[in-house]
């Protein structure tokens, strides 16, 4: 479906004004691609519940500011970084306003190479522009971040990427691009921490593409913890090679309108993915998680568990699609989505989808939507805990499983603390 993009002139000139590095031709072709489609509309099945076109009416307002020429890491980003460094043991890189700052990177391991996309022609060649938001991202990226893990290396210390956007005055648009390449038989742990600041409007559209070469293991925990009035779309696309294993957990505890896409390509035999997620939503938050896993070769394995807790007028969407292609015999795809509704005005649309074209496949999926278990609630109260405390304990028990199973242990305490604070806020909204 083709949608006319209303701010074409402004968009063209915004692309023109980006720094004249080697990415220019790539941006131009991505722009051409994007202009053919525009943002996805609600008539597209995958976007039925999330009206991005209405939420992001791109105009002069968004596209006028020059954001490509920030030379120094903004102070606000530096102070968030400092706080995080005190809480999570990791090596750090900051991407501020969509632009990677290698200067402040604390990575010293010789087995990790960190570069800007504009200096890595091989990575630039593989930039993914398969969907409208990836095209939009490529058209407007200032520069991307490329992280390569050397073959046969085991990276012990997590690599944490802080994606930070600040929009104190003008509406801010950012398009971060992260490229990860895990070499043969390597293993690493990554964190994507999304934070934002500022009273103005903000739309961040990030794309991470991960390539897992044969026998590699990549752990990625993604925490989207943006301010309550900011919009965000995020895509993680991974290609998983032979006997490689990808473990991703996506946690959403912030933002106004959020759309996440996780697209997994189990490309070779023995490829494996675990994708879990947690979304905690209240007020008028809208959080949409779409995941898709393609089992192209058998045997390959996928397992997925997303959990959501909704209060107020929150609206959430879960759509998990597993496609087991012809020939992907002996594959295993497990999927589940559990939701707790704390208010009768909150709404969840959950849809697990399985398409199976292969033989000897093991698949299961299930979705539940419910309230806090009244039996457990009474049990706790009968032990002297008041209703609020009992509610807090039970909601946190529901959320904690996803955090405890998230693959980067160094971030567990931080995640527990952030999700606890978020739950406090969400439950407080319940008392009205």
């Amino acid at each position, binding site marked *: 479906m083709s949608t006319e993009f209303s701010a074409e002139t402004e968009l063209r000139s915004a692309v023109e004004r980006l720094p004249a590095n080697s990415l220019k031709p790539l941006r131009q072709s991505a722009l051409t691609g994007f202009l053919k489609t525009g943002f996805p509309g609600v008539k597209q099945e995958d976007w039925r519940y999330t009206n991005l076109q209405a939420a992001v009416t791109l105009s002069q307002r968004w596209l006028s500011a020059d954001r490509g020429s920030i030379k120094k890491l903004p102070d606000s980003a530096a102070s968030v970084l400092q706080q995080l460094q005190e809480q999570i043991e990791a090596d750090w890189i900051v991407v501020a306003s969509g632009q990677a700052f290698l200067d402040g990177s604390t990575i010293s391991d010789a087995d990790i190479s960190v570069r800007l996309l504009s200096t890595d022609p091989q990575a630039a060649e593989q930039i993914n522009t398969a969907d409208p938001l990836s095209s939009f991202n490529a058209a407007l990226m200032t520069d991307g971040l490329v992280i390569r893990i050397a073959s046969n290396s085991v990276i012990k210390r997590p690599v944490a990427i802080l994606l930070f956007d600040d929009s104190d005055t003008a509406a801010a648009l950012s398009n971060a691009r992260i490229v990860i390449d895990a070499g043969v038989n390597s293993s690493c742990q990554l964190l994507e921490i999304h934070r934002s600041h500022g009273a103005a409007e903000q739309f961040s559209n990030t794309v991470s593409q991960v390539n897992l070469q044969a026998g590699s293991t990549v752990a990625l925990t993604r925490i989207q913890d943006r301010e309550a009035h900011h919009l965000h779309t995020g895509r993680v696309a991974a290609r998983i090679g032979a006997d490689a294993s990808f473990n991703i957990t996506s946690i959403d505890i912030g933002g106004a309108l959020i759309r996440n896409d996780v697209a997994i390509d189990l490309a070779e035999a023995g490829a494996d993915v675990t994708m879990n997620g947690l979304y905690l939503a209240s007020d008028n938050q809208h959080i949409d998680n779409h995941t898709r896993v393609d089992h192209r070769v058998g045997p390959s394995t996928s397992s997925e568990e997303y959990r959501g807790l909704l209060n107020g007028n929150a609206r959430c969407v879960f759509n998990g699609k597993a496609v087991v292609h012809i020939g992907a015999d002996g594959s295993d795809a497990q999927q589940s989505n559990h939701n707790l509704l704390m208010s009768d005005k909150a709404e969840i649309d959950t849809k697990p989808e399985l398409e199976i074209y292969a033989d000897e496949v093991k698949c299961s999926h299930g979705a539940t939507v419910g309230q806090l*278990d*009244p*039996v*457990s609630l*009474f*049990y*706790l*109260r*009968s*032990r*002297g*805990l*008041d*209703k609020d*405390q*009992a509610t807090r*304990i*039970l909601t*946190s*028990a*529901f959320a*904690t*499983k996803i955090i405890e199973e998230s693959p980067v242990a160094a971030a567990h305490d931080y995640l527990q603390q952030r999700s606890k604070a978020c739950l406090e806020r969400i439950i407080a909204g319940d008392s009205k």
Partner: protein
Amino acid sequence: MLKIRNLHASIKGTEILKGLSLEVNAGEVHAIMGPNGSGKSTLAQVIAGHVDYEVTSGSVTYQGKDLLDLAPEMRAREGIFLGFQYPVEIPGVNNTYLLKAALNAKRKHLGLPEVDAYEFMKLIREKMKLMEMDPSFLKRGVNEGFSGGEKKRNEILQMALLEPTLAVLDETDSGLDIDALKVVANGVNTLRSPERGIILVTHYQRLLDYIEPDHVHVLSGGRIIRSGDKSLAHDLEERGYDWLSEAVSA
């Protein structure tokens, strides 16, 4: 300590308790027996304050206060403890966490300082020894993956820690082998004191061999149809409940 007068209670519009009266004084142990479905658990849940049960008439006073006015957590803090017939599993909520939170909620209510982690561990270890429970249970989720017998022991462990003034134990003996039954009975007997009241809901005479009741009541059709001393339990064991029901309706 507890006075129940002409209590009528229903669930989802069905009346279960139909004019039940019972008085428990400090220092007494009362056994409540009766056929399945007679309303024993309903009585226990109403005393603990379960919101699903509606009290349509009658009164319950506890230590001179109107019990029915109190939220379940306030009843607990005021010294009422219900040992559930079917203790719920709560994965993700740590057993130690619950025990400590429960103890401190009560202490706070009584104006006592909260116990710190060290004091708490000392106390709970002692109680676990009494219940012959392995300390590893503390690390697990509340009743998570516990066997039927382990769940019941865990209930009595909670009771031993909270030292209630009035304990209502709903079929704590069912599903226990003889050794576990002795441990549970020992836990209850340890609590027995002139200041405390205990209501034992049970199906079998067996438990009463280890915990000697002062009074035995037979509950049938939502009412107490016969009260007596412990010899009544022996009669029931031999003759079943039918002779009583017949005697009543005759």
